[in-house]
């Protein structure tokens, strides 16, 4: 019986891809293991092999097609002697039986909130750019600016970046400035710290911050503390960057959000942006900063597009929050991918007549608590949103700050929406349950506004 060959997913977060090239044509016999076509995404290229044997009856998606959704039928495979007409009309998407509710695919489009208070010159034009491209542009621009800036990490050079963030950089800057390291985080982090002490400006890419756990001694004990321990003599101008927090279905050892860990340490600056323009502007500032900067990225956000100002040398200062949406009824404070839930919640709440002010902290150390306090003094209510664990969380710190600095302004206790207090499970339904959701944010806002 004819089988539909479906567009494969190359990674847990892939939603669509390009069908770059067919290696077979209609009428060809194939055996399992034969290469059918080449699939590519913004971060990977893969040869797609046949699983079953048969004859290619019909090619449904022409080569060169872009944006082909995962699970779309791309060709029909016939059994020997079968006619192409026997092809099934449409392929039902594989649906696994679910315990409760299917995990909604992560929203692929940016939330339709308009940034406010963006201090840009009149007439600034924008271009749509992914977070991944924004990070690459920030690094490349800074490497063009200063010969002391270099990038090192696992797979940053020849592989073009494990998440294709450093795509093309090896070609432009050469192997001396885009350096592939062995898989030895502790060692290469220490080497980078030493190079920074000697006055160079390393950008250290961790494939994920989960792996930086191997190197956290060098980050904390060497990079962060040496300026103080030297009475101000030494500087460590270094950036540690990479994916942080949950991706999708990658289990407990690849999903940890380290925001609060690093935010606790004097001597570090910690940045966790949400939008591509902030990724670009803040990373450029981080590279120029004379201090160690922890730059926490998010794998799910890498592929998201945002408007990035077309300004030469666009920088965003570290330590300044950004108000994405103004409102009167409640302040929602978040950062990183948490902003997605905050902004979605604000949109939905607006439909119900609740006006939420949404603040993106962007920097966790130093943290712009002044902007948060000013907002809370106006709205008298606050909900915090983060994907990390709830104990000793950023939200907990903000709650304490508001309590100490603006207690009399509060009309309700601050509610912290956070990831659940469990290691990240693999099962799709459990993972969804473990992460913070837009519904939880909405429910928290209703609770603090007594609706």
């Amino acid at each position, binding site marked *: 019986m004819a089988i539909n060959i479906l567009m494969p997913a190359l990674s847990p977060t892939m939603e669509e891809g390009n069908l770059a090239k067919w290696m077979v044509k209609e009428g060809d016999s194939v055996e399992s293991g034969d290469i059918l076509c080449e699939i590519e995404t913004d971060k990977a290229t893969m040869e797609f092999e046949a699983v079953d044997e048969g004859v290619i009856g019909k090619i449904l998606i022409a080569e060169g097609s872009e944006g082909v959704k995962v699970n779309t039928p791309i060709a029909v495979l016939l059994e020997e002697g079968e006619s192409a007409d026997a092809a099934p009309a449409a392929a039902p998407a594989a649906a696994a039986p679910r315990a409760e509710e299917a995990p909604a695919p992560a929203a692929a489009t940016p939330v339709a909130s308009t940034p406010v208070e963006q201090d840009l010159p009149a007439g600034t034009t924008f271009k749509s750019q992914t977070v991944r491209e924004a990070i690459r542009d920030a690094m490349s621009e800074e490497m063009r600016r200063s010969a002391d800036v270099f990038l090192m990490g696992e797979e940053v050079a020849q592989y073009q970046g494990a998440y294709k963030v450093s795509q093309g950089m090896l070609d432009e800057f050469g192997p001396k400035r885009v350096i592939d390291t062995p898989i030895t985080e502790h060692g290469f982090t220490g080497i980078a710290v030493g190079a920074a002490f000697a006055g160079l400006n390393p950008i250290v890419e961790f494939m994920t911050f989960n792996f930086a756990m191997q190197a956290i001694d060098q980050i904390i004990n060497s990079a962060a503390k*040496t300026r103080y*321990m030297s009475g101000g003599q030494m500087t460590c101008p270094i950036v540690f960057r990479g994916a942080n927090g949950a991706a999708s279905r990658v289990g407990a050892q690849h999903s940890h959000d380290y925001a609060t860990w690093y935010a606790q340490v004097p001597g570090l600056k910690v940045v966790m942006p949400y939008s591509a323009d902030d990724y670009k502007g803040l990373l450029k500032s981080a590279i120029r900063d*004379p201090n160690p900067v922890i730059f926490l990225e998010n794998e799910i956000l890498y592929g998201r597009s945002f408007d990035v100002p077309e300004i030469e040398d666009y920088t965003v200062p570290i330590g300044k929050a950004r108000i994405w949406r103004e409102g009167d009824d409640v302040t929602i404070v978040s950062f990183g991918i948490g902003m997605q839930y905050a902004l979605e919640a604000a949109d939905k709440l607006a439909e119900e007549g609740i006006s939420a002010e949404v603040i993106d902290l962007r920097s966790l150390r130093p943290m712009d608590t002044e902007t948060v306090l000013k907002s809370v003094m106006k709205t008298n209510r606050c909900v915090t949103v983060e994907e990390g664990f709830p104990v000793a969380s950023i939200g907990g710190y903000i709650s304490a700050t508001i309590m100490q600095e603006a207690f009399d302004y509060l009309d309700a206790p601050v509610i912290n929406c956070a990831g659940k207090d469990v290691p990240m499970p693999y099962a799709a339904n459990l993972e969804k349950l473990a992460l913070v959701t837009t519904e939880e944010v909405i429910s928290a806002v209703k609770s603090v506004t007594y609706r």
Partner: protein
Amino acid sequence: MASAKKTAKKPAKTSNLDKEELLEFYREMLLIRRFEEKAGQLYGMGLIGGFCHLYIGQEAIVVGLEANAKEGDQRVTSYRDHGHMLACGMDPKGVMAELTGREGGYSRGKGGSMHMFSREKNFYGGHGIVGAQVPIGAGLAFANWYRENDNVSFAYFGDGAANQGQVYETFNMASLWKLPCVFVIENNKYAMGTSLQRASSTPDLYTRGAAFGIPGEAVDGMDVLAVKAAGEKAVAHCRAGKGPYILEMNTYRYRGHSMSDPAKYRTREEVQKVKEERDPIDHVRDLLLTGKHASEADLKVIDKDIKKIVIEAADFASESPEPALSELYTDILAEAN
């Protein structure tokens, strides 16, 4: 500066002993010893707090190696760091005042015995996490490689650190990238209270780079001339762009690991035997006297000079005020431009 830094002005002449050089070695080693004895005394008086790791017995290593250093070379070590600082020409007053936690200290009182730095002398600390200074030292060498100069970095660590994982990660990358780094293993036989035999599966630490293609050499770390000669070879290797080099310095620490040491893990006789038979300062003293390079009277003059420097350092360290309370919140971050 009380002790002027001597860089290698002349090639090594171990066969034809250089009088001036021998006298300089004697002077520098004696300064470290007297300084450390004074530090021990000040500790006992309560002027120095916390941890204080004395270098007594190991003086020949830093003095012999520094004789091969040139302007721009860097050095980094562990928490047993006083000797390294004095040997690279840092001011004994500033070091001692840091031990007492005073404003006049190298870290203005914020670092203490284990954490001092000097940009001027390219001394990069002073690190308290065993082994952490090794990749940092390779990173300093990386900067030399990146800048394409011929400077080398000296990364000192002990026999205890030689078992740390990050040391081997560093060996791999240093060799892979041919970083100009001299790895100096100061094997004083005891990692705190654990003897080498009880902690290392193989005793020959100089062979630990073999798997990475790094040449290594065992050196009598109690003989300053042997140290200097080995250092010369290692440094030439690094400067020529041939990659890192390992020197295992066989040495001995006379005092405890830190100031409070149970002294149960080795015998008094063992310590006494090394002091009597292998003392690095006595060795140079003998060479000077038997070679008629100096008289007892000449050496007495040096002893007196050193004593004066150390007393001045101790006085400075006692008189320098504690840091202002406002210093608590300074030096955490550098000002962004």
